[in-house]
């Protein structure tokens, strides 16, 4: 097991941890806005770490480019979708949760 392998395994496992945090946040948080916050941020970082870990083991720069492109697309899509959903939820009159 080389240094690259170790680093790659560490990054992929850290990514899985962030995915887990995102899922727990989506299940446990009280309203749609806080769920959006947990989900989009947690999952995008998790995917980023996974992509980084896989890119370390890639054979060519073409593969690295494709992995980074997938990540960028998901980042863009996630940010756009979360803002759209949050804004239209506010317009529908859903009140953000406040501590009781």
């Amino acid at each position, binding site marked *: 097991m080389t240094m690259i392998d170790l680093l790659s395994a560490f990054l992929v496992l850290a990514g899985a941890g962030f995915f887990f945090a995102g*899922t727990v946040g989506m299940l446990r948080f009280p309203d749609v806005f806080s769920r959006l916050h947990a989900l989009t941020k947690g999952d995008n970082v998790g995917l980023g770490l996974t992509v980084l870990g*896989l890119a370390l*083991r890639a054979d060519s720069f073409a593969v690295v480019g494709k992995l980074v492109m*997938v990540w960028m697309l998901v980042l863009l*899509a996630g940010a756009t979708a979360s803002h759209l959903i949050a804004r239209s939820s506010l317009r529908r009159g859903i009140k953000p949760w406040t501590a009781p």
Partner: protein
Amino acid sequence: MSTLFIAVAVFLLLNLAAGLWRVMQGPTAADRMLAAQLFGTTAVAVLLLLAEGMGEPPLRDIALVFAFLAAVAAVAFVQRIWSRGGSHDDD
């Protein structure tokens, strides 16, 4: 090494299964759509891990398509269902 990737992919699949609870629970349509958002991101990660773990590079292209489809689905949801018409309590 590939065993680890496949194990992590299975773990992410279990995450997806847990996310289904939010689809059932609601309470608003937006919450259910959030679960779809989760599916989009996690499925991309699963496909990338399987591409490396099973040595099947074409799966990376499928991941690219999934990322694109998740974006289109979210925008279509907001445009057509969420931002006009329909109540958010009884759906």
